[in-house]
């Protein structure tokens, strides 16, 4: 889950009171955030991915103020007086294939509190957090902050030939050419692919042609360098999707709007569409029907309690004919529908263990019959003295290779060689176990009843999950006959008798391997493991192996009920 380091002093400053850690922990336990640590001024806060607004000082303080009863209702969004011509951005059609969406808003500081270094730092830290989370490392959305007083509107968002673009990167003193910037500057190298098409790059320029930034890579000096003392800022976001861009901008605006900055919309003109930007930082309205609240929460809420609870989580609600209409601020993109508002109310009240109700069971619980069949099979192996294992399906690449099981499905992004292949036979796991147990003396009798994954182009997912039961006999005198006898016994317990046919099985001694067929189906494999395999695994004794495909056997013994199946591959819940 996302985490941020916040300044305790800044949060306390916004609350105008101190905040003991115990109190903070208590409030956050009932919220979607957690205090991970507090060292000196640094609060390490973790929040669920839907509540990024709690990962900035302004948002956390607003939330805490509600919980502490210091403030109620929504933070006001003040419209700016809006002197001068309406600011706008012209987006050219050239940007569409790369990064089509741009949105922006102009914000103005209260008269007595222009931008200071602390606020700029808070905004930049939150901006980076948003890039990493909702912005998906800038791919989906990236943000920019500019000193609006130094800009001449309208701005122009364009895709220009690299050769014609020169600018001073925000962290440099001298002008650079765009090709050199994308080839050499760390930010250019890292994010360049998001803002270029090989010969051209995205640019944001003001009406005089000055470069504000190369979205989504880096701002330019001086037009992209906000500083302490600035009174008007342009907040801008580009991305691939309008919703994501608007959400990112709404969250970033929280840092300023919570401190009384006012908003002036920025119009975006693009070919065939114009957005006046008024909806961008304006509240949305969502209905909260009282009957939905009751049916989800399982209890009735008096109207006054609902309004009080919403007010505590900094939402404003007005009664409506069927419940309430709730004003949702732009920094709460997690609130999509009535259902989300229900959660706000329920969680604001707190869910208590004693609220729990267990409805009388109208259903009859049971195991899958096929699972009972597998367990009975496992019990017989146990009765024969086989030590049961429970091994991961993800198996060591080396053992799969030594056995020559080339059909096994391999991971495209393995974490380690030990867990690189999906076993298609339990033999892989059992031989790996023998390899690790050579110090324990012989004979060894080991078994597993568990899932394997077998590639199958006719399956919905490209492979089928099957359950096998397998065993190995390791020790002097262990051979094909001993393993075949075990398989015969296991089948005889099900009143079944198969026919063994010679077979070529990878990793087996030629001429000492068989498949066992039953009404035309292969249900088991039996073999003596080849000395080549044993020597590679450093197993010093002969090993015989048998493996029964329980998924193949079940239809022959299970007398299934004809129940609907939820699993395209067989096992399912059995209804009726």
């Amino acid at each position: 889950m996302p985490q941020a380091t916040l300044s305790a002093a800044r949060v306390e400053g916004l609350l105008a009171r101190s905040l003991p850690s115990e109190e903070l922990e208590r409030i956050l336990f009932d919220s979607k955030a957690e205090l991970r640590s507090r060292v000196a001024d640094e609060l390490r806060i973790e929040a669920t991915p839907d509540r990024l607004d709690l990962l900035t000082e302004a948002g956390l303080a607003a939330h805490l103020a509600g919980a502490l009863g210091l403030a109620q209702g929504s933070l006001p969004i003040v419209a700016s007086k809006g002197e001068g011509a309406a600011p706008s951005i012209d987006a050219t059609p050239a940007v569409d294939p790369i990064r089509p969406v741009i949105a922006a808003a102009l914000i103005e500081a209260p008269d007595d509190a222009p931008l200071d270094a602390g606020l700029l730092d808070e905004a930049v830290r939150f901006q980076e957090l948003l890039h990493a989370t909702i912005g998906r490392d800038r791919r989906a959305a990236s943000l920019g902050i500019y000193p609006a007083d130094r800009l001449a509107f309208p701005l122009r968002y364009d895709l220009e030939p690299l050769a014609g673009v020169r600018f001073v990167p925000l962290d440099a003193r001298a002008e650079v050419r765009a090709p050199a910037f994308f080839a050499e500057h760390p930010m250019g190298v890292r994010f360049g692919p998001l803002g270029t098409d090989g010969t051209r790059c995205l640019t944001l320029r003001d009406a005089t042609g000055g470069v504000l930034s190369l979205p989504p890579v880096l701002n330019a000096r001086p037009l992209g360098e906000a500083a302490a003392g600035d009174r008007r800022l342009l907040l801008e976001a580009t991305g691939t999707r309008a919703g994501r861009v608007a959400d990112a901008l709404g969250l970033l605006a929280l840092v300023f709007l919570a401190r009384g900055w006012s908003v002036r919309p920025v119009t975006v003109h693009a070919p065939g569409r114009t957005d006046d930007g008024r909806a961008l930082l304006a509240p949305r309205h969502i209905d909260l029907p009282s009957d939905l609240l009751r049916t989800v929460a399982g209890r009735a809420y008096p109207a006054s309690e609902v309004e009080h609870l919403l007010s505590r989580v900094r939402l404003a609600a007005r009664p409506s004919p069927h419940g309430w209409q709730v004003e949702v601020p732009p920094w709460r993109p997690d609130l999509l529908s009535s259902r989300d508002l229900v959660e706000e109310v329920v969680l604001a009240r707190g869910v208590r263990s004693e609220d729990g109700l267990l409805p009388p069971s109208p259903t009859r619980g049971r195991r899958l019959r096929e699972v009972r069949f597998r367990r009975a099979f496992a019990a017989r192996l146990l009765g024969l003295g086989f030590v049961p294992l429970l091994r991961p399906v993800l198996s060591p690449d080396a053992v799969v290779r030594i056995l020559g099981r080339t059909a096994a499905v391999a991971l495209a992004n393995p974490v380690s060689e030990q867990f690189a292949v999906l076993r298609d036979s339990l033999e892989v796991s059992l031989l790996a176990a023998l390899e690790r147990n050579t110090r324990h003396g012989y004979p060894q009798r080991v078994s597993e009843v568990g899932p394997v994954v077998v590639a199958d182009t006719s399956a919905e997912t490209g492979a089928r999950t099957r359950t096998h039961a397998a065993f190995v006999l390791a020790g002097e005198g262990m051979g094909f006959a001993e393993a075949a006898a075990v398989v015969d016994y296991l089948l005889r317990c099900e009143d079944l008798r198969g026919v063994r046919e010679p077979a070529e099985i990878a990793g087996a001694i030629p001429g000492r391997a068989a498949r066992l067929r039953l009404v035309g189906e292969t249900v088991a494999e039996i073999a003596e493991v080849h000395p080549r395999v044993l020597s590679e695994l450093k197993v010093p004794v002969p090993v015989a192996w048998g493996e029964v495909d329980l998924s193949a056997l079940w239809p022959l013994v299970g007398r299934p009920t004809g129940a609907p199946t939820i699993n395209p591959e067989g096992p399912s819940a059995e209804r009726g």
Partner: protein
Amino acid sequence: MDAEPGAEDGATPVTLSPSEALLLDLLSAAPPGTLIAEEEVASRSGLSPEAVRGSLQRLRSKHLAVAEETSTSTPTLTARGRAARSAGLPERRLWRWLRERVDGVPAENLGAAGLDSEERSAAIGILRRRGWLAPGVPLRLVPGVGDSPAPLEEERVMESIASGRDDIDPKVFRALQRRGLAQVERTTTRRWRASDEGRRLPPAASAPTLLGAVSSAVLSSGAWRDRSFRPYDVRARVPFLTGARPHPYAAWLEEFEEILIGLGFEQAEGPLLETEFWNSDVLFMPQEHPARSIHDALTVRGVEGRPPPSELLERVVAAHEGRPIPGTAVPISPGWRYPYDRAVARRPILRSQTTAVSARFLAARPAPPFRMFSIDRNFRHEALDASHHLEFAQCEGILGEEGITLRHLVGVFRALAEAIGIRELKIRPSYFPFTEPSIEGYVRHPRLGWIEVFPGGLFRPEVLVPLGVGVPVAAWGIGIARLAMVALGISDIRDLYQDDLARLTGREG
């Protein structure tokens, strides 16, 4: 199991094996106080020296025989020492060899001297200390020094040892010991007599012969009818047996299943290799959700999935994109506001949550009321450590019925916690893309304190409506591996899958 009982307690009848009885008779026949050497006892009894030694020791432990022990220490040459005495000590052999090479020999040519590397360095060191070897290289003897063939001190002492003389310089002897050429050999000789108690026992010839092991011959002959069996020392050590027993983790999971079955839940399963559609899309997880990236999910090579059922796919797409479900006029919600990619839906992925099983269960449109559980494996792209495994079990459960609310979900959490012996439960808000409200149940473990165990919530309409489910559904996914670790007292998650036969059979803890 033929150890003999002790005779510490006078009330315990003394029983003797045939060989013990024979030897006690032999010792008792000698005049009182007469000691007989152990070798003499062996030759008189006709038994092997080993059998005699064991039986006499047992007679002594029963206080029936007494031994007088004499230990002697004798300096002797080791096998290496004896070889050096005949072929010459390494320093003597090196001296002889160098004496014939007055111009000196480079160190690397010393191989021809017939000494192994250990002998070579010892010999060079000794000759240098004696001042017979000139400093530096090549190696050569100091002219005029050490020409005399007089014996070295070591050679003199070795001769004395070999001929049993006692003119042995202790300092030189210790040096030979360090070089593994000489040793002190200790020998113990025992002479035996019967104790007073032993002499009082009646001769074995008059005692009834006791039966040893029960054999088929004993049974068929009926010999057991008029004879007694020699008693065993029932406290003696016996062989250490191990065997196959149910796997502890599997057994624990089965126990947990019983609890759910008791609460009216029926079991379900689904495939381990899923498509992204069933693993995520149908659960209203946006296709760009961070948990779906290759850094969090495991994908496979060379396998292609098939498209999901088209009608269901279109309904799910509408929910994601915030459009009305086909056949309806109003969207369920604004959705995720992005263009859904149908090609992603068919991509195979290793199941990352058992909620996929719930999705398949619900897609089969079960008639309410229904309760379903699934305890099965899931996979995530995690670095392996004591608390994270790429492959882990989850217990998924859903409960669908008219009138189901969040309070019922909390009720199930409480029932499950109580069933595993935990009374304290507290709930806090949480977030999952497919449930709203979402909560997490924490339980207080006596040793570990509050631990997060029950994440859950009510399925969102964006999940249920496309699936055609008309009743509210409470859902949860318990990190069952974590609970199992607590219950089994395991601190490393990898131990749940361990395959050490010594531990699985109980040979080692």
